[in-house]
């Protein structure tokens, strides 16, 4: 065999070898399609870093939102009745009511059992309620009573139901008042605030 032929054969063999390696590599790559490749891992890392950067870039907006929410919450939080339990919260509401009643000279005939509702599942915020039966001497006293109850210091209240009987034709007969007083309470650890 001549040298030229030998050279051609050797080079052709090398080319075939490269071809075989390419085919083997492709087949190997195809069989590993399901396994995560380093490129997949890189893409995952890049995505995480991109999310972190986006979050960091949004810091001014979040700080503004926090400041606004914090100011609003501060006004709300000052009007919540804080207590470890709902019973203690309603007791504290009762104390506030009695203070008002005493101040105004209104007769408190009865206080029914308190009720407690949860406005949202899992929330520490409760709506505590007391049903009161009172006697007011005049419409003016009634108005003062209602005004004080709706603006109790340190409480966010609402009169959910009001029933007034009297004073009929003779004002001196007085007014019998039944009302349901609701208030917002924070029940539980204050550290959760």
């Amino acid at each position, binding site marked *: 065999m001549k040298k030229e032929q030998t050279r051609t054969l050797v080079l052709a063999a090398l080319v075939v070898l*490269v071809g075989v390696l390419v085919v083997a590599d492709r087949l190997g790559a195809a069989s590993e399609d399901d396994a995560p490749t380093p490129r997949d891992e890189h893409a995952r890392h890049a995505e995480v870093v991109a999310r972190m950067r986006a*979050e960091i870039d949004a*810091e001014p907006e*979040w700080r503004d939102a926090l400041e606004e929410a914090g100011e609003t919450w501060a006004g709300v939080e000052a009007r919540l009745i804080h207590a470890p339990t709902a019973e203690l919260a309603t007791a504290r509401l009762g104390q506030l009511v009695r203070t008002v009643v005493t101040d105004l000279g209104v007769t408190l005939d009865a206080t029914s059992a308190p009720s407690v509702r949860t406005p949202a599942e899992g929330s520490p915020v409760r709506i505590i309620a007391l049903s009161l039966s009172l006697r007011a001497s005049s419409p003016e006293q009634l108005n003062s009573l209602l005004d004080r109850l709706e603006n109790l210091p340190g409480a966010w209240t609402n009169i959910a*139901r009001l029933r007034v009987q009297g004073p009929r034709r003779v004002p001196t007969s007085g007014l019998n008042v039944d009302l349901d007083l609701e208030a917002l309470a924070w029940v539980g650890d204050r550290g959760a605030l």
Partner: protein
Amino acid sequence: MILPPRNILSLVIVGDDLHAARVAVGPFGARTVRAGTIERFLLPTGEARDAGALRAIAGRARRVLLTVPGSWCATRPIGLSTRDWHGARDELRRSIDRFVPFTPDDALAGIVTMHDDAGSPAGGLLVAASRGRVEPWRRAVEAALGVPVGAVMCPMTASLGLGLQRAERAAVLEPVGFGALHRHDFALGLPVRAAQPADDADIPAADAVLPGAEASTVTGCELASAAAVASLVAPGVFAPLDGRVTTHRGDWIAPAAAVAAAIALFISAPAVERSRVRAAIENLALERESLAEPFASVRDVRKEAERLSTLLGRDIAAATAGWSSVLPILAETQAAVPDAGFLYRIEIDGRGVTISGEAPDTPTILERLESSAHLTAARRAGPLSPSTEPGLDVFEMRADREGGR
């Protein structure tokens, strides 16, 4: 095949003239890039005439071949081939004056392997030239180019690059001085007979007549181009008078290296890519680490803002939806009753207000309740009956809270 492309400056001395050709030899063949002739090249001072023109032709070529005239050469058949040449060269040169009319000190010697009709090596042709005649030209060329002459060839070996390989038989006539001609016969480009005396009668049958004769069919520049590729198209057939030419080993080195490089690249490509991706992942991990602290800070801020927003938007807003003061409704209800009337009962809840009492003009009460900013849909809730009091009616009415639950 030669990788990468190589520029060769090939020079041929014909009489007093120097013919030059720059030939680019690459993987897909050779081509003459530039050629030209510098007449009366060698000045009496030993310097080159118009060295700038030579440099212009040379370009970036760093490989220079010089072909001397046949009249400067002497030949003699010898029982050696190119393969034997390297081992016998030194000994042969020491005793060269036994074969050709040059002293060992003055002789430049090379060899051409001859072949039989079957293409097998069959002895060789010793070719020699006088160093004293070549050196002035060599020095002038080297001084002009700043590049050493890599090889000195004779016209016969240069003619191997004339493209005679396609011809089954070819005859080349070479002027050897004083009007004499030598005939070289080739079979498929391989020399089979060389330095046979010839005369003008052989010219018509010749395939090529080298420059230097009146009937030349090959120009000096064409012979220069042929000399540049002679060692590539006839590898191992000759050894030059001086220096070295690219041998057949060169044909192997480039493609073999290219294939080896391709294999190496192929094998290493996945690893290199993995390495690069790993490095990129490490960079990302470092970046992630550097971002961890500010990210945690922002995340805390965001969580707190979201928590407070949830508290306000979901818990507090849901709890206080529909909460409003009863005092305005109470006041407007009381004001709706004329002075002559009075109320028995007022009931206010989340939906509206119900009142009952006695009054003289009950439609007015309805109108007043309806016109209230806090109430709507005022209506009677019970029968209207005369009171025991003259001029009064007993009534019961209801109105809905504006936007009530």
